């Protein structure tokens, strides 16, 4: 495990070379097993600070498991996984990471504001912080464009609105790292655009790091960096531009498919050589 000096006081704008702060996420030989199945196999990658990194791959490839490992809710994690300079799951990280699960995790029998009031109080308890909490709650409700629904029961909202409530919870307290598991699923194009604008402003204004998963490839173009995953392995870790150039493709989707085909072909030849050498 690496030991970094504490860094939270200063948040550097971008991942420059002389940046003393550790990367947002650093994984080496990261392996996760669930039951007898190995879901992630020996992953190694780095998520730079202050950028939007897209985590892409077909469903079932291990995106959610990787995100759960990063926020520290996944059991049976082996290898190195450092988040904001500390081992993943460290208690000190709990206020510094905002996490949105794939299914909206909010209380259906509370109003939008009551949901946020409660989670805000868990993050920043005490009477002294009450005024600050109220501001924070009002801000995040506006950020996800639910001001008109603040007093509606979460259970009575539409699917897209509920997932925005869940996102708003993650925005509370201005976390340094946002881990968002498919936050734009089921949203209409206008809302999706608005949310991506919000993600970009969070990254640019606050210097926060965003790790966002998606299986919609056109969203990949909006990320600064991409991690392409397939069957528990990282296929590529690059900028969208570099990926397109490297594979000679027009779009990220094409680049991804090309990489997958290459990986499949390589696996096939490997299997064949193994058979012939036997």
């Amino acid at each position, binding site marked *: 495990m*690496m*030991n*970094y*000096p*504490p860094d*939270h*006081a200063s948040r550097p704008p971008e991942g420059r*070379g*002389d940046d*003393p702060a*550790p990367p947002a996420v650093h994984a080496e030989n990261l392996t996760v097993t*669930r*039951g007898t199945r190995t879901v992630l196999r020996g992953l190694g990658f780095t998520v730079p600070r202050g950028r939007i990194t897209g985590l892409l791959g077909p469903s079932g490839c291990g995106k959610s498991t990787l995100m759960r490992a990063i*926020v*520290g*809710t*996944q*059991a*049976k*994690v082996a290898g190195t996984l450092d988040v904001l300079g500390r081992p993943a*799951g460290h*208690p*000190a990280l*709990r*206020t510094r*990471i905002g*996490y949105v*699960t794939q*299914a*909206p*995790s*909010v*209380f*259906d*029998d*509370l109003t939008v504001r*009551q949901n946020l009031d*409660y*989670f805000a*109080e*868990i*993050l920043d*308890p*005490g*009477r002294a912080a009450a005024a600050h909490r109220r501001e924070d709650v009002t801000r995040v409700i506006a950020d996800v464009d639910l001001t008109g629904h603040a007093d509606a*029961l979460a259970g009575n909202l539409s699917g897209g609105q509920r997932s925005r409530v869940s996102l708003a*919870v993650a925005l509370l307290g201005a976390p340094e790292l946002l881990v968002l598991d498919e936050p734009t699923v089921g949203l209409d194009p206008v809302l999706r655009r608005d949310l991506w604008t919000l993600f970009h402003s969070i990254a640019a204004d606050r210097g926060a790091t965003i790790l966002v998963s998606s299986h919609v490839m056109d969203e990949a173009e909006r990320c600064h960096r991409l991690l392409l995953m397939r069957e528990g392995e990282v296929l590529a870790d690059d900028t969208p531009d570099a990926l397109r150039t490297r594979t000679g493709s027009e779009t990220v989707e094409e680049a991804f498919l090309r990489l997958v085909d290459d990986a499949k072909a390589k696996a096939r030849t490997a299997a064949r050589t193994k058979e012939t050498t036997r």
Partner: protein
Amino acid sequence: MTTPTAPTASAPTLTPAPTRPLSLSRTTATATRVLRQLSHDPRTIALLMLIPCVMLFLLRYVFDGSPRTFDNIGASLLGIFPLITMFLVTSIATLRERTSGTLERLLAMPLGKGDLIAGYALAFGALAIVQSALATGLAVWFLDLDVTGSPWLLLLVALLDALLGTALGLFVSAFAASEFQAVQFMPAVIFPQLLLCGLFTPRDNMHPALEAVSDVLPMSYAVDGMNEVLRHTDMTATFVRDALIVAGCALLVLALGAATLKRRTT
């Protein structure tokens, strides 16, 4: 990595310790949240408050000819109702918390397991006080339940029973994967205690083996405690012992329940 040779023994981290075993404000925030959830569900509240009263009312006129029997069974039921209702409500509520993902989210936040458990106990304890007060008041003043001791002691035992119910509900919800299973734990956990607690026949009339089993089941002491209040004017040593046993069991099961909450799950 070009990490500068940082002083290894750097100053103690600036981050305040975010999670303590028990934080009063996070506990009360959780209790308030649970009560707020219930406040959006008036039907559940009405059922919780009315059913014990209706049952006592029924019982009073079922035993119309033998008020002695009503005294015995009525007092026992005052202890059993809060246990059963709080068991059901808590097991479903915490199961929902587990399956809806809010538990995972909360445990990824600086919420201590103790805060969550204590918050639930506080909220349902408050609910149980109101429920028991209504039932006890009705039984003592309107249905002529003949209690020798103080009704306040009945209320105390009822509250401890409610806590025990909350604790058991929390604990078994860890072993239920669905609401169907959770509801089935009611007959599995509660019915044997109901049969053996001395409600139907005094415990020393049972087969010695069953009597031994009933000696280790907490509901037996809940019912014994109620009967002590029924028969004695002041707090007897047996009453104190019974109350302590019920409270101790509640705390023990709450601690077991806390152990079933895992921050990391597969």
